[in-house]
């Protein structure tokens, strides 16, 4: 303070303002985003939670909502929507018990290891118990609906779409990104080409794939005929239809993985790679110890974003198969959409909330995995 009095600075007011502005920088940087998100997120979240607990009816002069408690959710698990949402469960055999038992043992080991570790906290414990319960139930559902005699419900189908789709998208995206960051003539041409599928509107992609997969008018008709499969229509086969949808999904979203990974690889500095080459490391060692750790954070984010988006898949099943055969290709969002179209807004919101639970569950696992990894890396 004294020094300031001795040497009065010119533009003192300006300095005060700018230092105050500097102290507030933290708030100023983040506030617009927080406010925007609050504005358009809290109300819809609460409103649809209320919707899921209510029954929607057309009433004279408009519509009315009646509060029905958890009836919409009950319907999803045990009531009329049960087989639609959860699927048909195959009877348990000794084999399903063995598979399920193995998963349970793995989960038990995971819990036991946490108990034996030195830092057990209540929050961590609750989180891990919930994780174990959730994964146990999901495994039970997946085993029994995927087994012979079972039928996938919209929940299992969505999980298949999400995990199979993301697996292929990431592998393909990473491989192609690695190839196009090499110093090859024409790599920019390939990069732009590879971006194309992402640029087509999802509805458009869905219609395009419906054209392509048509077994009598599509471009692959001669192949179908050559294989003697003219009578076979993938539309009538559950796994055929799911595969077709997965191909469309992978086709469209690999570019997303690709372009982000290209940017990540490109912004990586060259020196460590140069140093490693001088030291005689082979390309696999360079990838494992330099490139992979550098792109790991971006990859995690990328998979998280795709995880959240992939759970919302709806255009492809809607346009390509109308959810058929039966309900075989319906995803959770599509399930919500059907109920919504039937003006059953309550159960539509209930499905949406179940989807929210599922996505939150997997995202939490994933985010904790990221933190764990980044802590380990440090």
């Amino acid at each position, binding site marked *: 303070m004294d020094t300031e009095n001795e040497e009065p600075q010119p533009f003192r007011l300006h300095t005060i303002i700018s230092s105050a502005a500097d102290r507030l*920088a933290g708030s100023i940087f983040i506030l617009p985003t927080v406010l925007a998100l609050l504005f*358009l997120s809290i109300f819809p979240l609460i409103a*649809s939670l209320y919707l899921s607990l209510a029954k929607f009816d057309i009433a004279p002069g408009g519509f009315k909502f009646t509060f029905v408690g958890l009836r919409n959710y009950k319907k999803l698990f045990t009531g009329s929507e049960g087989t639609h949402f959860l699927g048909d469960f195959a009877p348990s055999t000794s084999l399903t018990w063995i598979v399920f038992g193995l998963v349970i043992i793995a989960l038990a080991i995971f819990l036991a290891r946490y108990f034996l570790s030195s830092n057990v906290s209540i929050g961590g414990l609750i989180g891990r118990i919930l994780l174990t319960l959730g994964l146990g139930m999901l495994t039970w559902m997946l085993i029994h609906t995927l087994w012979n005699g079972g039928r996938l419900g919209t929940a299992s189908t969505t999980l298949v779409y999400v995990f199979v789709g993301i697996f292929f998208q990431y592998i393909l995206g990473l491989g192609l990104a690695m190839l196009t960051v090499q110093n090859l003539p024409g790599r920019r041409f390939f990069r732009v080409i590879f971006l194309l599928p992402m*640029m087509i*509107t999802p509805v458009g992609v869905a219609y395009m794939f419906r054209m392509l997969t048509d077994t009598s008018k599509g471009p692959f008709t001669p192949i179908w005929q050559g294989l003697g499969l003219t009578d076979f229509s993938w539309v009538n086969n559950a796994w055929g239809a799911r595969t077709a949808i997965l191909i469309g999904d992978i086709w469209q979203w690999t570019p997303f993985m690709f372009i982000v990974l290209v940017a990540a690889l490109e912004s990586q500095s*060259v020196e460590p790679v140069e140093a490693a080459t001088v030291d005689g490391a082979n390309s696999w060692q360079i990838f494992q110890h330099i490139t992979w750790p550098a792109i790991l954070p971006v990859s995690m984010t990328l998979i998280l*974003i795709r995880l959240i988006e992939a759970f919302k898949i709806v255009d492809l099943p809607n346009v390509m198969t109308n959810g058929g055969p039966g309900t075989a290709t319906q995803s959770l969002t599509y399930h919500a959409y059907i109920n919504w179209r039937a003006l059953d807004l309550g159960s539509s919101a209930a499905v949406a909330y179940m989807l929210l639970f599922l996505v*939150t569950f997997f995202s939490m696992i994933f985010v904790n995995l990221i933190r764990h990894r980044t802590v380990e890396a440090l």
Partner: protein
Amino acid sequence: MMKRWFQSKTINTPSPVGAILSYLVLGIWAFLILFPLYWLVTTSFKISSQVNEGPFYIPFVDFKPSLDAWKYILVGDLSKDTLRNFTNTIIVAPASALLALIFGATAAYALVRFEYRPRVGAIFTFIGCTILSILMTSFGVMWQISLAISAAVFIILLQTIGRRFKRALGNNDIAFWMISQRMLPPIAVVIPIYIIFQRLHLLDTYTALIITYVTSNLPIVIWLMRDYITNIPIELEECASIDGASRYRIFWSIVLPLAVPGLVATFLFVLVFTWNEYLLALFLSSAKIQTLPLTIAAQNATRGPQWWNMSVLILIMIVPVIVIAIILERYITRGLLIGAVKG
């Protein structure tokens, strides 16, 4: 002699064999990408009977191309709609993407370089007051009044109860909260959002669409930019800070230029997301501000899908994005960061 074929000249240049293999894989994937698009192009030159009577592959050889669909979309019956929706898309999508990028990049920078400790007590008070205001509004109180009341209650509670609960969350929790805003499927949020804009008298305006798009894409921008910004060496910012640069100046003249590859990549697909968004546009626009995806979906008429019209529209829609992508692609390149660190 053989060894030369497997050895690369510099780190980044593959060996001749590696180059051939790379081209092979790239070529296969390029074919898988381009063939469906080729089919789209040929379909756009077909007429109804040529589509329905089995596959025809090569124009002029297999079938006689016709410009009917193109004429119908561009100068015929649908041209007015197409032009209007095209203009709307061109206004809404880049504006939303740019705004999302600006807000998202600043927020991402803040989440990386500042430390926030939002208290649990404050958050719960806030949620309680929001529910209070919604309840009051649903019981017939004017929304301005209920908003004012809950704001007052919030401030009072924050000063009293809110201070008791000292447990605080960190930056990672904020980031997770942000990304969680994308988890509800659009079908569940579209009615509440419709009601909000109806109350604000903003339905069928650009403002409503842009606000919705910016908000729904902010989480993605934040998460991606967070990673890119983390990779920028903090030493540069420390130097600038010692030299007396303000936070804003550091952000503007050091962080942003260094994050260009990330910014460009992020901008590209936020643009793509908004450009192609369908469901929200369907609800928030009635006629004036409809976007092109709606026109495409509308081609699935009672007579069955009008494949040829759809193909034309899809092709028209991707051309501007391709042009932007080609212009921007050069910025997603190596070396920007390295130069800065050395300099």
